[in-house]
């Protein structure tokens, strides 16, 4: 799709113009960090933010996602629940756009997940380019997520007085028709290209090899002692998967209403790093060893999805490393495995 532009002074009117029609979600400051929240006005948005604590996936796969309700009277009758709230995720950085793009593939593949797809089809994604590395441990460049390749409707790159706007979908085109946007002229294209060049050189590589080799390196490291060593730094708390833009594992639970006999089946975020994740009702735990759980996570991130979808299930955002109290950092592990 094409390249457009919008003057900075027009962005506010554009976003505020969306709010009556869509639930607009954007990064906002929370003390010295940031979080994606529903905003009431463009003024609330932190344009110049570093990575949010949780990725925006929480609006597509909420922590508690009701699948259906059950009314035992006359049946029982089961009513599926679908969230059709029209929503705009604004200000999503390239790494997180990649995360959503991967979830799009994963949750559509095979037996597709309509609860996700329903939310997704009602969600517009307006990305916003970050200007520099958000943190020392971000390794987006190594994971190939410096610029978006899919999964967005519009994507904004700061050119000083205006933004270059990549249009990713037809819905994005429709958004751009709301006013303020114009086709990119030669000058915008030049600046956009220059900005991209500048961004590329401004981000260092933080993995000491070409990540194309990663699946093989991980395969060869299956029995490496590094997994046992990492055990000594892991709590089984699942913070790493909770903050991950591409983790989507869930648990399914029933909840009863005390006043009636109705119940709700819902799913909630789960984590392959929790001790009982692979335990069955009979008591056997098929991934009872902490080192096996750690390896499983890293293999998912760096091997399995790459082989299946052609893309890593790690976007290099570095959130897991920052949230780990004993500093288990995917980037460090990838580096150490190469040895």
């Amino acid at each position, binding site marked *: 799709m094409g390249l457009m532009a919008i003057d900075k002074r027009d962005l506010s009117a554009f976003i505020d113009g969306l709010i009556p029609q869509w639930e607009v979600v954007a990064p906002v400051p929370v003390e010295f960090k940031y979080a994606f929240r529903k905003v009431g006005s463009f003024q609330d948005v932190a344009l110049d933010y570093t990575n949010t604590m949780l990725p925006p996936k929480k609006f597509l796969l909420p922590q508690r996602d009701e699948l*259906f309700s059950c009314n035992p009277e006359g049946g029982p009758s*089961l009513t599926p629940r679908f969230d059709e709230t029209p929503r705009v995720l604004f200000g999503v950085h390239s790494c997180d756009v990649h995360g959503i793009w991967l979830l799009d593939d994963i949750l559509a593949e095979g037996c597709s997940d309509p609860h996700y797809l329903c939310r997704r089809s009602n969600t517009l994604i307006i990305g916003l380019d970050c200007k520099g590395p958000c943190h020392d441990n971000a390794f987006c460049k190594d994971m190939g997520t410096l610029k978006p390749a899919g999964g967005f409707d519009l994507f904004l790159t700061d050119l000083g007085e205006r933004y270059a706007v990549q249009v990713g979908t037809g819905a994005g085109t429709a958004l751009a028709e709301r006013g303020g946007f114009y086709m990119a002229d030669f000058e915008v294209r030049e600046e956009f290209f220059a900005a991209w060049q500048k961004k590329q050189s401004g981000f260092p590589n933080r993995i000491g090899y070409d990540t194309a080799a990663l699946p093989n390196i991980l395969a060869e490291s299956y029995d490496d002692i590094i997994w046992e060593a990492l055990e000594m730094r892991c709590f089984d708390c699942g913070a790493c998967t909770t903050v991950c833009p591409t983790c989507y594992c869930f648990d399914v639970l029933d909840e009863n209403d005390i006043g009636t006999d109705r119940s709700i089946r819902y799913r909630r975020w789960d984590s392959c790093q929790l001790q009982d994740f692979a335990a069955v009702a009979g008591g056997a735990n098929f991934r009872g060893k902490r080192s096996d759980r750690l390896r499983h996570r890293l293999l998912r991130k760096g091997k399995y999805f790459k082989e299946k979808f052609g893309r890593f299930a790690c976007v290099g955002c570095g959130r897991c490393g920052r949230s780990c109290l004993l500093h288990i950092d995917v980037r460090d592990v990838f580096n150490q495995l190469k040895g």
Partner: protein
Amino acid sequence: MNHKYVSPYVPRLAELVTARQLTSREKFFEVRLQDGSALGHQPGQFVEVSVFGVGEAPISVSSSPTSQGLGFELCVRDAGSVTHALHELPEGSTIGIRGPYGRGFPLDELKGNDLLFVAGGLGLVPMRSMINYAVDNRADFGRLTLLYGSRTPADLLFADETERWRGTPDFHVATTVDLADGAWTGQVGPITKLFGGVAINPVRTSALVVGPPVMFRFVLKSLLMMGVYESRVYLSLERRMKCGVGKCGHCQIDDVYVCQKGPVFPYTRVRKLPEAL
């Protein structure tokens, strides 16, 4: 509400037609889908059973698709919240069924072969589906042999049926228990003890193995020593199949979702999955 999306997580309603105690821990259920349709399963597949307000659990289908009944059969051990609630339900209750899910035994590949069924404990539940399929399509298969091991004589499942199988032409049945009581006159010891007493033609035999994880390693060793081809050994793996549709992640071993690619796997595949055994 008509919706363009159909959720795979919403079960079909079904009736518990009969419920009968099988052993102290297992109960046997006949289940019929409310819309009258057949489940349409293959031997070795499983369903997700819902007790509304309690939850959902993966359960192997125990009846053969060839069986004459109107529904299908489940044999359930009281082991968790859902299975306990299922045991408590009276006949006629409404439950939810999703599935059938996964890949069962490869019927086309098995056709024409001798079949060696090796079942440990609850493993006989899914195996029963396959055994009855073979019995009902007796001409499609060669020699049939069932080796069945259980903890105690009281834990033996489907005793009547085991006798019926014994009476089927060219069907050899051998059982063993870990702990015998006074009345037990049969074999005592691990299931591998039964291998000495069976006469099979290894090159014509496909071996189907279902049982607790500890059993697999010894059984595999015995099978391979007997000369059964690796490519003709099939295992059914137990995992925590929560969603049944390859999403929730709980049943994943290495890069494989057991609920999608299993629970029945050829040994040649399992061998490449370090987390499988």
